[in-house]
């Protein structure tokens, strides 16, 4: 259900403005709207509210603090961050205690954050250095190993200085050019050997007399050639010794890296919650300061405009009256149907239906003044899910999965909601499983479980009829709701068009049912009569494209055949699992194979059943009535209320 919203205007004496803003922030129900003021000078009655110098400074300071806090939060390891967010979402005792302590400290928080920033920066710098060292030393190790392999053969180390350069294999045509340059610089007094460094790069080792070092360096620098040098600390040493030092260091560095990471973890386990809470409190303050730009003022008064759920107006009026007597008043502004596109949408469904709002999150919000589809999807989604999966065994497993999800959800609302949707769908799966007599496919039948109504693996045609009937009912409900929605949004033309489409559909159903021997022959004539009357009416209303819409509606109904198709596929796969399991001589092996197959079938079943049930809603059902275009409701509220 879409909550009724009111557009209000709060007018009061200017001296109360800051305390009113604080009050509205704590009240947490009003979505503030910017009051448009095109001129902020001259003889206009209302002006923008400008911040005082003190507030401007505070805003700057808080913006800077926000950047620092974000920088620190980015360094919190993910597993700690999730744990901390969970604590905040659950509002644990620890969270409340820390928040109260931070609120008492006030501006002392700045120096605390600066201290944490210094610490974390130093740890991160150290960690980056170690990671760079590991990377460099791994490269050096390769280079030294190559030097060691090549150099001794020529006895270079006594006479020559050595450098290594790396070149992409795709650029290897430059090697002769480089050699030519060395030829010129050293008067042909050099050694040059190239070799593969890795899959993409070549290494060239160049030996030359020490007196040419500067010229060669300049050449390499000017031509931007990548140099791979043995670091200074290893240069004077024999290559064997250098290699063993590098290897030793490569063993040492990961331990140091682990040590630094541990220190980072400890820091955030102790102070991470404070940082997250400070960030939230800081954002609250910033939002409060920024809100002033949406208000307007005259010489002595201020004006605040915004949206509030109608049920909360009286409470807000009462609170303002208690605190400010008559110096602040609330006016409820008249809302015309033309303003509906501006109204923010607050969905307020009963607690048990609320999780199903998640299934509508893939679509835009409904327009204000139209129907909310949450209750409908809360009924039909589990129904379709159960109808397709329909297996007692799978239903029981789904309940277990749902309980596990709920256990691990803790503060995460999304997981909680998904677990609830699964639970309801699982119950529906068990109910339909009982109707069709299925327990892990045909295992139940082997132990005397019989279908109450249909044997799905055999009754393909009755199941197809059932799916189509479900489609007819669903689409007809959609068309009825479409008619109502058009009426509610004052679109009379669409209303009549949808109603006529519904009547044509009923006519076709009468004819089809009579042809299929489901209804007495008289319905054939009634159906024909309806078509003869309403198709011309539809063409009159909607032009010659109208019959096409009816055909597309028929296509929508046929699409419900997927309930039968996917359902039959699921039961047959379950039977294949059982058959495969029972074909082994070993009982244990048979059970393992059958279990694996059932797990696979359940996973595929959950996935495809969810997707197709959703699709039936989004494409077939909602297209008949759901009108999108609502704005999200974003109340001006504190992070902790």
């Amino acid at each position, binding site marked *: 259900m879409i909550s009724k919203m009111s557009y209000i205007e709060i007018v009061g004496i200017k001296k109360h403005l800051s305390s009113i803003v604080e009050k509205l922030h704590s009240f947490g129900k009003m979505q503030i709207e910017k009051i448009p003021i095109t001129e902020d000078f001259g003889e206009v009655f209302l002006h923008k509210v400008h911040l005082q110098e003190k507030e401007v400074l505070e805003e700057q300071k808080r913006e800077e603090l926000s950047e620092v806090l974000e920088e620190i939060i980015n360094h919190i390891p993910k597993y700690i961050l999730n744990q901390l967010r969970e604590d905040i979402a659950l509002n644990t005792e620890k969270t409340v205690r820390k928040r109260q302590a931070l609120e008492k400290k006030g501006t002392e928080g700045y120096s605390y954050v600066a201290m944490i920033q210094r610490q974390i920066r130093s740890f991160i710098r150290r960690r980056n250095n170690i990671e760079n060292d590991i990377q460099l030393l791994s490269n050096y190790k390769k280079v030294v190993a190559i030097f060691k392999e090549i150099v001794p053969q020529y006895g270079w180390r006594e006479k020559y200085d050595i450098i290594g350069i790396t070149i992409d294999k795709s650029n290897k045509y430059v090697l002769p050019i480089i050699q030519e340059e060395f030829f010129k610089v050293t008067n042909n007094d050099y050694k040059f050997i190239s070799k593969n460094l890795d899959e993409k790069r070549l290494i060239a080792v160049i030996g030359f007399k020490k007196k040419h070092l500067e010229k060669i360096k300049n050449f390499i620098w000017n031509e931007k050639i990548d140099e791979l040098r043995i670091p200074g600390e290893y240069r004077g040493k024999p290559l064997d010794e250098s290699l063993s030092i590098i290897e030793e260091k490569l063993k040492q560095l990961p331990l140091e890296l682990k040590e630094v990471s541990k220190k980072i973890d400890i820091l955030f386990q102790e102070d991470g919650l404070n940082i997250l809470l400070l960030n939230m409190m800081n954002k609250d303050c910033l939002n409060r300061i920024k809100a002033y730009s949406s208000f307007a003022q005259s010489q002595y008064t201020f004006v605040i405009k915004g949206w509030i759920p109608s049920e909360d107006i009286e409470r807000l009026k009462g609170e303002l009256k208690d605190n400010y007597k008559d110096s602040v008043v609330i006016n409820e502004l008249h809302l015309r149907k033309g303003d509906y596109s501006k109204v923010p949408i607050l969905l307020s469904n009963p607690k048990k239906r609320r999780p199903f709002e998640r299934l509508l999150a893939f679509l835009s919000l409904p327009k204000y003044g139209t129907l909310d589809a949450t209750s409908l999807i809360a009924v039909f989604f589990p129904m379709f899910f159960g109808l397709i999966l329909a297996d007692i065994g799978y239903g029981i497993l789904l309940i277990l999965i749902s309980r596990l999800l709920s256990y691990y959800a803790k503060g995460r609302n999304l997981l909680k909601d998904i677990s609830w949707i699964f639970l309801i769908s699982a119950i529906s799966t068990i109910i339909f499983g009982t109707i069709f007599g299925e327990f892990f496919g045909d295992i139940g039948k082997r132990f005397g479980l019989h279908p109450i109504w249909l044997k799905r693996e055999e009754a393909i045609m009755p199941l197809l009829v059932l799916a189509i009937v479900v489609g007819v009912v669903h689409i007809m409900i959609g068309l009825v709701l479409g008619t109502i929605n058009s009426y509610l949004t004052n679109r009379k033309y669409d209303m009549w068009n949808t109603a006529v489409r519904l009547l044509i559909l009923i006519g076709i159903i009468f004819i089809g049912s009579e042809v299929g021997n489901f209804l007495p022959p008289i319905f*054939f004539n009634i159906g024909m009569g309806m078509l003869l009357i309403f198709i011309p009416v539809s063409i009159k209303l909607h032009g010659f494209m109208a019959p096409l819409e009816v055909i597309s509606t028929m296509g929508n109904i*046929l699409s419900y055949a997927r309930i039968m198709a996917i359902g039959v596929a699921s039961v047959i796969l379950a039977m294949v699992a059982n058959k495969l399991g029972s074909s082994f001589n070993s009982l244990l092996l048979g059970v393992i194979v059958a279990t694996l197959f059932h797990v696979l079938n359940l996973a595929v079943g959950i996935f495809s059943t969810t997707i197709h049930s959703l699709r039936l809603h989004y494409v077939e059902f909602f297209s008949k009535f759901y009108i999108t275009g609502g704005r999200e409701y974003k109340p001006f509220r504190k992070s902790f209320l």
Partner: protein
Amino acid sequence: MKKILWFFVIGLLLMFVASNVMAKEEAAQTPKKSERSDLAVGLLALAAALSVGTTAIATGIAQSKIGAAGAGAIVEKPELSGTIIVLIAIPETMVILGFVVAAIIIYAL
């Protein structure tokens, strides 16, 4: 022009009525399942196979294009994952209708 179109629509409706009546009479004359020749049964089976096979290929082609575009979109905007998964399921209608036609060919004809 409009008069012609109206005439056309009403004519179509009347044809629909007449064809339904004729179909009923024809249905009474259609041989029973057990009386069909092997060739007829084979042709029906081929028709059912073609019904599922061709629609499955069409679905595959459509899904491959949506899937490739969807994967690109998810890289840019991971929050679109749910919507893309539903979009990929849309062409499955073709193969499901193909399956339905095949089921009708096998069980109802």
